[in-house]
């Protein structure tokens, strides 16, 4: 309890020191935040950026979400936001600029410790639509649901037939718990027995999740299968800045697109954009 209160105090102090009242300054520490799915990726890139001596980065400890990150950039609260969706027209009008940095497979994961290693598309759609409530062995399936605006769900709805209706149905069903952040998503999937959730491979890798990664039909969610197009489900990541970013921000974007940056991304479960 004492450790938790101390953590709260430290975080509050850091947020007050870097985000609360200080204006953006050229020599200041670069502030990065945004999508929870890319939180681990952001930290890895920040470490690589710092290791190159290009500057100091401060990555927000918790997810702000893609939309929250973009708004924070436009409001000057962040220098760079990592988004898992492209900019909207209104965001572009407000002066936001996005740079695609890579793609990561969207993986169906479970906490089941048995031999379940794959899931068909139909079964995935039925389970997320609460039409199939049991695993093939008869055990109940606990699906971890996400809010409908989540960029990952938009990809699933686009790529899997019937998923859009299934997600709308499950969203409207009362009494079902929802994970509002990517971190909550993995945490709930890990805690619930016989769970089913969807997450980005980069989050699973960077946050060292022990959840079982399921093949989609027969295809494993690997970077190689994503590069060859064998694996269909992937979400893109963008770096968002203002139209007039600071030199440090521009330097960070360039670093990410560099060979070192791409290498870090590949290690973090992301296929760099140039590939």
């Amino acid at each position, binding site marked *: 309890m004492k450790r938790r*209160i101390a953590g*709260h*105090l430290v*975080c*509050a102090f*850091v*947020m*007050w020191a870097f*985000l*609360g009242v200080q204006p953006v300054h050229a020599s200041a520490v670069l502030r990065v*935040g945004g999508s929870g799915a890319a939180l681990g990726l952001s930290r890895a890139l920040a470490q690589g950026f710092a290791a190159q001596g290009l500057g100091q980065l401060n990555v*927000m*400890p*918790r997810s*702000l*979400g893609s*939309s*929250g*990150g973009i*708004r*924070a950039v436009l*409001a000057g*609260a*962040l220098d760079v936001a990592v988004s898992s969706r492209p900019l909207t027209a209104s965001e572009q009008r407000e002066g936001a600029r996005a740079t695609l940095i890579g793609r990561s497979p969207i993986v169906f994961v479970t906490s089941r410790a048995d031999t379940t290693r794959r899931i068909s598309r139909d079964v995935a759609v039925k389970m997320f639509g609460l039409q199939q409530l049991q695993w093939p062995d008869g055990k109940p399936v606990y699906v971890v649901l996400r*809010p*409908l*605006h989540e960029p990952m769900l938009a990809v699933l709805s686009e790529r899997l037939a019937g998923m859009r209706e299934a997600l709308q149905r499950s969203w409207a069903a*009362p009494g079902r718990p*929802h994970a*509002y*952040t990517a971190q909550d998503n993995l945490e709930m999937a890990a805690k619930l027995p016989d769970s089913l959730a969807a997450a980005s491979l980069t989050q699973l890798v960077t946050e060292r999740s022990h959840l079982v990664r399921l093949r989609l039909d027969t295809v494993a969610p690997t970077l190689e299968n994503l590069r060859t197009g064998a694996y269909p489900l992937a979400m893109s990541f963008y770096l968002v800045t203002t139209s007039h970013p600071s030199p440090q921000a521009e330097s960070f974007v360039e670093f990410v697109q560099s060979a070192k940056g791409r290498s870090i991304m590949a290690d973090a479960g992301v296929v760099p954009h140039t590939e």
Partner: protein
Amino acid sequence: MAAHPKGSVRLAAARIRRLVTVIVGMMAVLVLVVPPLGYLVVNYRYIAEEAGTHASTSAELLSRLIYGHGAAWRFETDRLEEILSRTYTHGDAIYQEVTGLNGRTIIRTGAPPAWPSITGQAAITESAWRVGTLEVVIGLRPTLVRTGLVALLSLLAALATLLAGRTLPLRMVEQAFQRLEESQAQLRLSQDALEQTHDSIIITDHLGHIQYSNARAPGARATLSGVEGETHLDAWLRSAEDIGFPDVQAVAGRGEIWTRRYRRCTEDGATFEAEGTCFPIRGGHGEIANFIFVEKDITQQLQLEARLRDSQRLESLGTLAGGIAHDFNNILQPILGYLELLMRDAPVGTDQRARLIKVQQAASRARDLVARIQMFSRRTEPARSPTHLAEIASEVAGLLQATLPANILLETHIVGEVPPINADPGQMHQLILNLLVNASQAMPDGGTLGVSLQTVQLHGKVCLHGPELSGDYVLLSVTDSGVGMDEATLSRIFEPFFSTKLHATGTGLGLATVYGIVMNHEGGMDVTSTVGVGTRFDIYLPALAADAVVEAPHEATVLAPGGRILVVDDESVIAELLKTFLEQMGYEAESHADPLEALSCFEASPQSYNLLITDKSMQGLSGEELISAVRRINENLPVILCSGYVDADGVDPDGELRIDEILTKPISFSTLAGTVARVIERKV
């Protein structure tokens, strides 16, 4: 057991109607007010709780979401909106607004509801620092609309309650009171019936305390036990005889019916024979709750029973006497018949004829005695004709006046014009004479002997002797101021040969003859007597209507000799006598003592007989059976039936045998001659 007056029942009904109206009105008001008010209060409290709770829980969720974000939390509007949109499920209009510390709105969901509304607030915290406020506003208008709907339904329910509660219970109340009135009327009827009955009826509790007594038992209401207002059946019982309530309770307490006869004295000193009956009434649990005691005056019943016994005894005596008379007639028939033949042969003035005359006189007395016995036993069919009883009474009184002692005053009183009766004048003569002689003999020391006649109209009169009488009757009353009779004597005076020392001078058949004559004429008779005061005989004889007076038929006495006659009588002496009579008359006669033998002779030569004379009661073949057999051979043969009994009603009631004449034994020569001649002449 006081009955409620009808007015008080109606008053109670009106009071209950008012009470029901008030109660139903209050219920209707409650039905009108409580549901909508309760619905509004409950829903208001629920919504108020909901607003506060929703604000707290949502603020907690938001705080958890923004944990670690510092000032950047305000940029997570999408997630905040999603959380707020999913946490409220009430369904009513809701407005949620998240504001920062500077009061600036960060997000809002829905539109602010119109007045009235309920607001709930909660703080949004980040790392224990308050960073904003969540305000939840829920509109009350949907609730008010629903409350209005409930109020409308309540109004309808209240009206229905008012309507149903005002009509159905009142109808039930009215029906109940109607039934109450009916049962009270029934109760009054039963009470009236109990009060009007001739029996004393007393109802007690199981201990014998009197709870009800009708008007016939006024003594039961008196203060018998000495305690004012308390009465007990024991005292009522002991006032009549040495019977106590324990005696009654010992029997009735076992569930059986107690009955006993005793004599009770009334308040005016009179006594009557009573029969008390007591039976138990059980309560709802089978225990004996009450006793009902009924005391009946059975004096008249006992008198009737005594009369019935007397009548039956006299009837038996009559049957016995009739049988004896029949046999005596059969014995007298040859004696008198042969005497008559001997008298015809005995020269006049000789000693032999004088002795025969004395024998004939003795036999005639015997015949008269038998005739009187037959009259008592009603075996003598009266020769009815319109008879004026007043004339006969005057004639008999005139005859008797000369023989009465000087100390007996004979008074005759005839009230108005007495109608004739359909009677045998000779028997009426005998009736009045016997009564007057009996009365005169009851006054050895003199007195007044009264004879009166009057017409009376009777309606179901029950006499001491005789059937129930209704219609116009001639009442013959004979009174004397003699010694009178006690009850024992009075009950036997009509028995034949019954005599007392006082009556030792008579034959003992006088009043028995009176009894037979009255009964033979469908009359009735009452006798009242008091020792030392006198006796009164009231004889009721049916008056004859004027248009029913018919002239008596003229009897033919023509002797017409000639023809062959078949005579049958199982008494061979009588058969021979009749044959001799007929031969003396000039007929050819054939006598048989065996009816079967006679029938064989007739069957052998039916055309040779012109007349059949047969006895009625015979061994082997009765007179009726013989006549029936003869009729099958010769339908037109004249037939005369003889019998010691004469009961025309009992012989050939349907007329199938077509008997020409019936003769009663003993039969004299002249009677036989006239009858035979008449029958043969009729057939010729």
